[in-house]
């Protein structure tokens, strides 16, 4: 039996937090434990206190610049996989050097399949390492 994958979602919009939780938990084999954070600071605090396999970060977080959030995540937890979420198309306002540390992009709006296959791909890659 595979261990439960721990996933953190940092996103200002409640509906996205709920949707991701629903999409990842409603599957037949719900092996994901989803934690959510409403702000970047909350998210960073959570990272310091526990370990996650993957973190979803919104590219347009209020408060901190998302490149700064990414840097801090990687400082605290270098091995974690990071997925950047943005409204439609990716990386518009995102510096190239920061996007190198990103393991995947998720363009909103997304479907259940899209987020699930992205998460499985990333976890397969992590297990393969």
């Amino acid at each position, binding site marked *: 039996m595979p261990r439960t994958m721990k996933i953190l979602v940092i996103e200002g*919009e409640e*509906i*996205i937090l*709920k*949707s*991701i939780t*629903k*999409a990842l938990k*409603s599957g037949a084999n719900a092996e994901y434990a989803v934690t959510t954070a409403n702000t970047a600071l909350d998210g960073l605090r959570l990272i310091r206190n526990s370990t996650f396999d993957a973190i979803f970060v919104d590219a*347009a977080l209020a408060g901190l610049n998302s490149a700064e959030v990414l840097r801090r995540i990687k400082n605290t937890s270098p091995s974690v996989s990071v997925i950047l979420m943005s*409204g*439609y*198309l*990716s990386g*518009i306002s995102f510096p190239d050097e920061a996007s190198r540390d990103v393991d995947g992009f998720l*363009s*909103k*709006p*997304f*479907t*259940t*399949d*899209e987020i699930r296959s992205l998460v499985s791909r990333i976890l397969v890659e992590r297990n393969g390492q």
Partner: protein
Amino acid sequence: MKLTAKLKHISISTRISILLGLIILVTMGIFSAVSLMKQQRDSVDALSRSTLLLSQTTEKILRLSMLKNRRDEISTAIKDIVENEGIRSVRILNHEGIIKFSSRHSELNEHISRTNRLCTNCHVGRDSTSIHAVSSFYSYHFDERNGIIYSSLPIYNSPDCYNSDCHATTRQEPSLNIEKPGIGPEVHPVHDSSQTILGFIEIEVSAKRIMTNLDKSRSQLILLTILIALAASTIVYFSIRYLVGKPVRRLVDGTRRVAQGDFNNDIPSGEAELGVLVDSFNKMQRQLLSTQSQLIESEKLASVGKLADGIANEISNPLTGIIIYTESLIAQSKLGNDEKADCQTILQEALKIRESVRNILSLARKEKPRFVPVDIDTTIRHAVSVLEKLSDFRNIRVIVSVPKDLQHVSADPGMMEQVFLNLLMISSENIAAGGILNVSAVNMSKENKIEIRFAHSGRGIPDNVLHALTKQNAGPDFENIERTKISLTVCREIVALHKGRIYAGSEPGTATSIVIELPA
């Protein structure tokens, strides 16, 4: 100051025509004056020569009469000569300056002054011995004021004159009155052999006619000069107005229009240098117009892009919720079939919104593709999997046939998926329930390309929609937002960015396939 300011407003045509008139007046005036002077000189010369001839003839005719001292004959001859037109008087003087014969009786035996031209021609001052070095004693004088030519021919001494005694004999006749003062009536020759000149025949000829003719010519020339100057000035004035003034006025009007922002009126093409100027003005105007419309277009695009971005971000979060929650409902087994179908319709429409917004954004943002090797098979299958759950897709069969050895293409995977999603949606909308949608891809090794074909059984895609594929002067038409057209425009732009080609694969009006060629 005021005058110079006023002068500045005198038109070029006026200036040039006045200048030309002045030039003609001056040059023709000089020319006329010179030629009139020459004409006068020539006429006077000719008249003088003929007078000389007359003098010589007279001298020859009268020589015998003079030798024989036949005074009547001489007087009669002189009278006869004067009767000819233009001859004013004829006189014969002796060397002492006494008028011996004259057609004017009143001056007979008068002594001419020592300062008279006849004397000073040869003699210097009052000294009778010193003589000018003269080649000929014949002379004439033209009195320009009165129009009279005085021609004087010397009567030379000859052996006849000083040897012949006939003259001397006749001198003794008491009736004659030709003696010099102090000379007695002795018998001896009248003329000494040492004398060179015995006297003069002087003829006065009127040059009035010549002068009158010259005056007439002068007036005619002045009139002609003025007429020519006026005519030339007038012709030049109107030519310049027509050839320069009119086109320049048009150009000035054109620049005013352009200054007011009206770029739409071409100036009618002209001739010569101004024609070239007009052409380049029109060209400049068109370039300005196109630059302006490009600016307007890009400003419009930028603002539409911003607006679309804002809307898209606002929509993306709630739309995610709709999609995920609907999918979750569909996945629940306790729902009845009708409810499931309803949920599928909601999902389908939500996904349509997602694609529409994505298409509008991709037109407005004009992003550059990020090229990576793309496996077309995976991308197509993923696009199909996104749409499979939709009710439109439930009723048709999608057959994907891609060879295992299909070459990878260098492309932006997101953009490629967008193209495939758009084409799948368009095709599905034109297929009746139970129809088949064939998605196939082949290597075109010779041309180093791959070809992807979306073919369906069903009605053709309408022509007016297909125009979006071939529309030149690419650019989104935001005034005519129609989902299918925008989808096709996006496909065309993305394929163009990938240096590929997209076209309708069958006859217009019955198009049931769309083909994409991409460089491998």
